[in-house]
């Protein structure tokens, strides 16, 4: 009983947005609440890089970029409000920086034809582009991260983790639970024992969890934490005198503010990172064109720290895709559909990163219709008490472990939602 008039009216209202003269990149940021410490530098990095493109290059392909910020406070209900309020502005790509919001936006963005880029977070099985047509999680995802950590530990233990115990200290949310399945599979395969220890939102109370760790003394503690949970966990590890070298965070648990409060006591703590740190030419450009010009999104103090760099990297990937979309479509004012096609054809190699002033910031990767996940490589970094020091080169995950899991999970999603594979297998 479709009321066609209603349909026509509503769609006319939705479609009645003004023609846009700029490239809109919404930033669903969170500068308030218990996760703000991570949200602020990321949002600053994202916005500052876009401002830099406007100031230095006059935008992307001659069209100015515009970042529309909306505060979500890492809350899914406000995330929905933000999505609806920014969508009408001609949003090209969404980066919610929250796994919970990602889960809500996957079906919505797919229905609205807007790409969703969840860099190193969100739904892991979205790497299967065959099912998730509008969701991208290159360059890496959680299951890769779990596999990378285990690979690194294998190397340190001469190839065997037999009889060892690994505790997973995780944020009790979709985000924290994502790696469990991979780690369980790996535990079976490599013969280590996995203990799962959940920390409830927001993560300030971890007394019980660390009591358990103190009692059981696992050989390694792997952390999937975010926001205030990281600082508390690292401080608790210091208090329980857990050997910091055996405490490893994922890439959301290894930012400057996470370890600074514990300072020198936390020396030895390791974490993954999907983007390289260090002095890059692009920082000088941002300092000159953005911060000194008084256009910085924040107070400019975060320049160059871990999450700022990652936000900037996210903006760089979005800008590269937008430039590619302009090239592919031959139009300077691209649509979300152009953007999606370009993201699917995106190739990031050393020369591209070099040209953007950030040599070697991430791994080289190429996206395809089937593979929206990139290589999944990550580096390991260590806190020396004052700075993060890069320990390793990019470590590859074990695709033979993660790939079947991706296939299985995405097949279930496809079945529940009646999705046909989008890629024509040739």
């Amino acid at each position, binding site marked *: *009983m*479709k009321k066609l*008039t*209603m*349909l026509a*009216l*509503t769609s006319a*209202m*939705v479609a009645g947005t003004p023609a846009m003269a700029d490239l809109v990149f919404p930033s669903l*940021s969170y*500068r*308030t609440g218990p996760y*703000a410490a991570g949200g*602020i530098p990321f949002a600053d990095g994202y916005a500052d890089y876009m401002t830099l493109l406007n100031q230095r290059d006059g935008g992307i392909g001659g069209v100015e970029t515009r970042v529309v*910020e*909306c*505060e979500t*406070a890492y*809350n*899914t*209900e406000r995330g*929905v*409000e933000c999505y*609806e*309020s920014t*969508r*009408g502005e001609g949003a090209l790509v969404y980066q919610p920086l929250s*796994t*919970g919001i990602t*889960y*809500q936006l*996957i*079906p*919505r963005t*797919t*229905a*609205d034809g807007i790409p969703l880029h969840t860099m190193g977070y969100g*739904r*892991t*099985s979205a790497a299967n582009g065959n099912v998730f047509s509008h969701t991208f999680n290159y360059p890496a995802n959680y299951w890769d991260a779990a596999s990378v950590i285990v690979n690194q530990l294998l190397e340190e233990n001469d190839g065997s983790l037999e009889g060892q115990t690994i505790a997973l200290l995780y944020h*009790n*949310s*979709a*985000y924290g*639970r*994502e790696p*469990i*399945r991979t780690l369980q599979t790996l535990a079976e395969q490599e013969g280590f024992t996995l203990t799962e220890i*959940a920390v*409830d*939102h927001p993560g300030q109370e971890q007394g019980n969890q660390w009591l358990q760790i103190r009692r059981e003394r696992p050989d390694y503690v792997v952390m999937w934490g975010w926001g205030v949970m990281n600082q508390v966990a690292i401080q608790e590890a210091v208090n329980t005198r857990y050997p910091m070298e055996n405490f490893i965070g994922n890439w959301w648990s290894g930012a400057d503010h996470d370890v600074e409060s514990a300072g020198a006591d936390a020396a030895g703590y390791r974490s993954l990172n999907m983007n390289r740190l260090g002095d890059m030419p692009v920082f000088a450009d941002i300092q000159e064109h953005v911060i000194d010009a008084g256009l910085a999104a924040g107070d400019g103090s975060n320049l160059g720290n871990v999450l700022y760099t990652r936000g900037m990297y996210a903006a760089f990937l979005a800008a590269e895709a937008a430039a590619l979309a302009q090239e592919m479509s031959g139009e300077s004012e691209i649509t979300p559909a152009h953007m999606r096609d370009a993201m699917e054809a995106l190739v990031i190699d050393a020369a591209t990163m070099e040209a953007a002033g950030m040599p070697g910031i991430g791994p080289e990767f190429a996206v395809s219709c089937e593979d929206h996940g990139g290589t999944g490589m990550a580096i390991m970094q260590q806190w020396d008490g004052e700075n993060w020091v890069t320990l390793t080169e990019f470590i590859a995950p074990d695709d033979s472990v993660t790939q079947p*899991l991706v296939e299985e*999970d995405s097949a*279930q999603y496809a079945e*529940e*939602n*009646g999705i046909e594979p989008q890629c024509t297998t040739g």
Partner: protein
Amino acid sequence: MFYREAGDFSTTYSEDNQTFPIKFDRYRYYLVLLVGAVVVPFLINDYWANSLLIPFLIYAIAAIGLNILTGYCGQVSLGTGGFMAVGAYTSYKLMTAFPGLDMISITLLSGVMTAMVGVAFGLPSLRIKGFYLAVATLAAQFFLVWMFNKVPWFFNYSASGQISAPERDFFYFINLPVTGPNAEAWAKYLFCFLFVFVLSWVARNLTRGSVGRQWMAIRDMDIAAEIIGVNPLKAKLTAFAVSSFYVGISGALLFTVYLGAVEVGEVYGITKSFLVLFMIIIGGLGSIFGSFAGAAFMVLLPVALKLLLVDTMGLDTALSTHFQFVIVGALIMFFLIVEPHGLARLWALAKEKLRLWPFPH
């Protein structure tokens, strides 16, 4: 001026006992219904539906539900979030287990399921009262959220423990999706509007009937109520059942129609219980209108402030969020100081004044 009551007489008892005995009120109510059911669906777009109206309607159901228990029957509950989660997970299990089922049946069944769970957790209310009961329901809140996190059967063994709503239709012969990303804004709105209309109509008539009078007798003084022949077991448990039915429906709609994907600890956590409790305290305990006013205050005001501060005044997003906390907090204090019985009482007083205006004596 506003109220012209000359010639507005009641000639029968039923006329005198109707919900809106004043003609002006009655016509205004019909007008609101007409606008809500016929005009709004034509004007609504995704933003208005998803950011304002649908959450308002859904929270209004939860507020009515809690108001039945706390405002009418006097049993304080902090388990609202947990009961909403029961509704949501029942919906999810039904939607995935029976793909052919329509949303009206699913939502009603979720309400029934929650009512049963609510009765089970309401049993302690026969022995404990007041703050002690609040703590007992708090246990329900934490237990239910823990259970939905812990038992993988509830989230169909998905990797992340998230549940997400597939596309389902309005009713079995109305093939109009109301869940999933392809649902039209107006369809979702009408679906919620229908539930709100029927449920608030039922609530209004329950609370002024014999069941409601029993609840209020228990609320006002349970010993006296028992002496005059009110069965406390029946009164308290029916209040828990009806209240949980409403809360469960609201939780189910929040998941299926509004959010689409849910993380139980975040969406149905203790903060949700407090949010709904604040709604009825600000709106007015023991008032159906108060439930709507409270839901509007807590849901619409933050969004309206955001529109004002960020989109109109161009303030920084973080600064405006902090301002929102300050302004909403100050308004809550202001309203509760001006009228401790909530917005409903404030409205009732204003109405008295308006009826007498311009000759107050």
